[in-house]
C-alpha cells in the first residue's frame, strides 16, 4: 500500500530504524533497547512534524519482530469518539442531575478513551515470544485531566505492556506521568542529513534541484521531512529541474497560509469579512479556538508591524485565549478578538 503510493511522502517514509534520517544518538539508544530486549515507558517529545511517531513505530516494529501486528497498537488521543464507541460507552453512561434547565436528566458520558480504547489492549496478555506489548499514544497532551487515569494503568499493566507517549507540548503533561517515563527529545533533522535524504528521492524520481533551492526548502519546511517532500512533489509537477522560483511559486500556494489571509481584512477593519472567512476556515479544517489563537500569534509575530502594535495585538490574543478557558462558545470569544483587532487597525 505504501510503496505504490503516488504520494511521495508516503512512498519514501522510513520503514526501519536505520532508514530514519539523522538523529544518530536517539537511534543508538533505541537499538540498545532492542538488543537488551527491555525498555522503560517512553515519552517522545519534539516539534510538530519531526517524525516522532515514525521513530516510535519503527522502533516498536523492530522490537516486537514478527509478532508486531497483534502486539502493537497506535492510538490518537485527540480523535473524537466514533458512534460505535459512543454506543459502547453508552452502556456505562450516566445521567446528569447536577444541572438544571435543558440539560437536566440528559445522558453524560465518562471519557471512553481509557475504558474502550486503552484498557482492552493493555489487559490482554502479549502473544508470541516477546516480553510485553507496546502501546503508542499520539498527541497525549490533549487528554488533559484524563492523563491522571493513565498513571495507574502504567503501573498496573506495566509488566504486560510498555507505553510510548508522543507529544509536542511537554509542558502540558502532568508531573506524575513525566516521572514514570524516560523522556526522549527528538531534534529536527540537520541540513546534511536532510540533503542526503532528499538526494535519494531525487534520484529515484529523476528530478533535479539546485543548492540554493534546497536550502530554501530546508528553511521553509523547518526540518519537517514530510512537508519538504510534499513541496518537492508539487514543484516537480511544474518542472523537473527545480530552482528557487519554482519553489516559491509552490510555497505561495501552500494551504498553511489560510490564517495569514485573515490579516488582510483585519487590516482593512472589515469585521464581517473577517468573521465570515474565519468561520469558513474553521469549518474546513476543524480548528479549535485555541489552534486559531496560536496560528494568529505566529502570523502576527512575523508580520512587519511596529513593536507597540504587535504587543497590542498579542495582548488581545492572550486575553481572548484566557477568556476561552471559561467561555462556552468559542465563536463569541473569537468574534470579540477580531472586533478588537479591526478597531486597532482602523486607528493607524
Amino acid at each position: 500500500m505504501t510503496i505504490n503510493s503516488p504520494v511521495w511522502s508516503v512512498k519514501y517514509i522510513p520503514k526501519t530504524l536505520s532508514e530514519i534520517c539523522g538523529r544518530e544518538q536517539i537511534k543508538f539508544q533505541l537499538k540498545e533497547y532492542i538488543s537488551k530486549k527491555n525498555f522503560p515507558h517512553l515519552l517522545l517529545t519534539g516539534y510538530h512534524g519531526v517524525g516522532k511517531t515514525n521513530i516510535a513505530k519503527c522502533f516498536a516494529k523492530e522490537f516486537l519482530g514478527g509478532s508486531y501486528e497483534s502486539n502493537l497498537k497506535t492510538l490518537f488521543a485527540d480523535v473524537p469518539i466514533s458512534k460505535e464507541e459512543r454506543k459502547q460507552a453508552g452502556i456505562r453512561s450516566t445521567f446528569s442531575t447536577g444541572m438544571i434547565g435543558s440539560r437536566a436528566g440528559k445522558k453524560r458520558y465518562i471519557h471512553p478513551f481509557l475504558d474502550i480504547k486503552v484498557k482492552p489492549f493493555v489487559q490482554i496478555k502479549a502473544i508470541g515470544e516477546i516480553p510485553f506489548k507496546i502501546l503508542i499514544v499520539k498527541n497525549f497532551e490533549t487528554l488533559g485531566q484524563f492523563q491522571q487515569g493513565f498513571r495507574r494503568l502504567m503501573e498496573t499493566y506495566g509488566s504486560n505492556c510498555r507505553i510510548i507517549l508522543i507529544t509536542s507540548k511537554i509542558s502540558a503533561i502532568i508531573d506524575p506521568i513525566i516521572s514514570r517515563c524516560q523522556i526522549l527529545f527528538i531534534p529536527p533533522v540537520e541540513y546534511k542529513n536532510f540533503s542526503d535524504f532528499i538526494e535519494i528521492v531525487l534520484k529515484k524520481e529523476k528530478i533535479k534541484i539546485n543548492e540554493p533551492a534546497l536550502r530554501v526548502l530546508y528553511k521553509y519546511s523547518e526540518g519537517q521531512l514530510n512537508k519538504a517532500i510534499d513541496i518537492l512533489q508539487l514543484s516537480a509537477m511544474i518542472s523537473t529541474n527545480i530552482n528557487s522560483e519554482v519553489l516559491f511559486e509552490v510555497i505561495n500556494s501552500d494551504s498553511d497560509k489560510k490564517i495569514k489571509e485573515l490579516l488582510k481584512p483585519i487590516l482593512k477593519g472589515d469585521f464581517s469579512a473577517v468573521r465570515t472567512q474565519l468561520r469558513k476556515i474553521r469549518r474546513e479544517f476543524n480548528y479549535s479556538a485555541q489552534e486559531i489563537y496560536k496560528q494568529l500569534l505566529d502570523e502576527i509575530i512575523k508580520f512587519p508591524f511596529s513593536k507597540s502594535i504587535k504587543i497590542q495585538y498579542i495582548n488581545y490574543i492572550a486575553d481572548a485565549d484566557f477568556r476561552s478557558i471559561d467561555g462556552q462558545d468559542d465563536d463569541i470569544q473569537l468574534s470579540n478578538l477580531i472586533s478588537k483587532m479591526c478597531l486597532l487597525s482602523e486607528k493607524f
Partner: protein
Amino acid sequence: MEEIEKKSELPWVEKYRPKFIKEMAKPVAKVNRQKVDLIDELIKFIKNFKKESKEKAVLLEGPPGIGKTSVIYAIANDLNMQVIETNASDTRTQKSLKRKLDEASKSRDMIDFIFKSKNKIILIDEIDGIYGVSDKGAIPTVLEIMINSEFPIVMIANEYKRSLNQIYKKVRKFEVQPLSEEAVIKILEKILKRENINDFKPKDLISIAQKNNGDLRASINDLQGLMQGGRSAESLKNLDELQRDTSEVIFSLIRSLFTEVKTLIDAKRLLDKSDVDYDLLYRWVNENLPKYINLNDELVDAFENISTADQIFGRIRKYQNWALLPYFFDLFGGGVSLAKKRSYTPKFVKTTFPEIISSRIGTDKLSLAKKIEDVYEISSIEATRTVIPFLKLLSSKSIKMKKEISDWLQLDSKEKQILKK
C-alpha cells in the same frame, strides 16, 4: 370517592403515584450488565434480610423520574413495612445522619416491641447529592450504619460519582433502565381515563413520551400541563406547533432588542418576558449582532460585553453558581444592545440562525479521512488539516495524478468530489 376528590388539588404526579407493585410500570434493571427483574430481586433482598446477613444494602442507579423511589414505597406497602427516608433536602452531616438512621436502624424501641409494629426499610435517597462541606462525613457514616443496621438499606442515586466509590465496593448496584415509550404512553392513557378526559389526540401522548426520554414523572407533568391548560380543542394545539414558532419568537425578540431597547430595564424586561432557552438566546445575539451594529468601536463594546457574559455562563456551569445569572442576562442583553449608539440599522434585517461550528469532522469528509488515517497512520483530524488539502492541490495539478490518487486510496465518487472542491 371522597379521597379522590380531596386529592384533586394534588399534582397528578403525586395523585397517581403507585401505591402497590401491581399499579406500577415494571422497571427493568441491570446488574453487571445482566438484565434482572428489579422488583423480584428487591423483594428477595428485603424479605431475606436478617441482622446477620452479609448483604446489608443495595443501590439503585438511574435517570430521574423512572420510579426508583416509587418502587421502594410500593414494595414497602405490599410487604406492610415502613420507609424511613433521608434525601438531599436534609443536611446530611455525620451527626444528623447518625441520629436519624441510628434510631431507625438499631433500636427497636419499646413501643415497637409491644405493638409489634411494622418492619422498616431505610431509604437513603439521592445519595449522589452527598458532597461538599455541608454533608461532611456522611459517607463514612453511611458505611458504618450499613455494618450495624438491623434493617435493609436501599440507596438511590442518579449517576456515578467518584466520591461514592467506597459505597460501590460494598453494595450490589442495580442500574435501573428508563421506561420504554410504550410503557409511558400506556400509563398516560390510564391517567386520562381516570380523569375522564377523552378528547385528546394520541399524537400528543406520543410526542410527550418522546420528548421526555422515558422520564415518567416529567411526562405526567407535561400531560397535566397540556390537559389542564384548558381542555378546549383550540388550546390543544399539538406540541410540535408550539415548538415551531419559537424561532418566530426569537426573530422578533432579537429585532426589538436592537431597535427598541433604550434602557437596561427595557432589555431586562424583554428577556424576562420570553421563555426562550437563554443558553441558545445569547448565541442568537452573537450571530446577529454585526447586522445591527456596524461601527467598529461599538462592535468592540458589544463583543466585550457578550464575551464576558459567555465567560460568566461558563463559570455558572462549572461551579453551579446560579447566583451569577443576573450578570449574564444584563451583559448579553442590555450590555450588547446599548452598545449601539450611532450605528445605522437598515429597515429590513434578516435574522439568521446561530451557526454552530464544531471541531468534529463533518460526515461528508469522514470516510475519506478514515481512509487516509489507515494509509498515512495519522489521526483523522490531522488528515483533514494537512493531507486532504495537499491531495486536493496535487490532484488539481494533473488528471493523471488525480486518477493515481483515487486508484491508490480506492475512492468512491463521493470522496472524489471532496478532492475536486
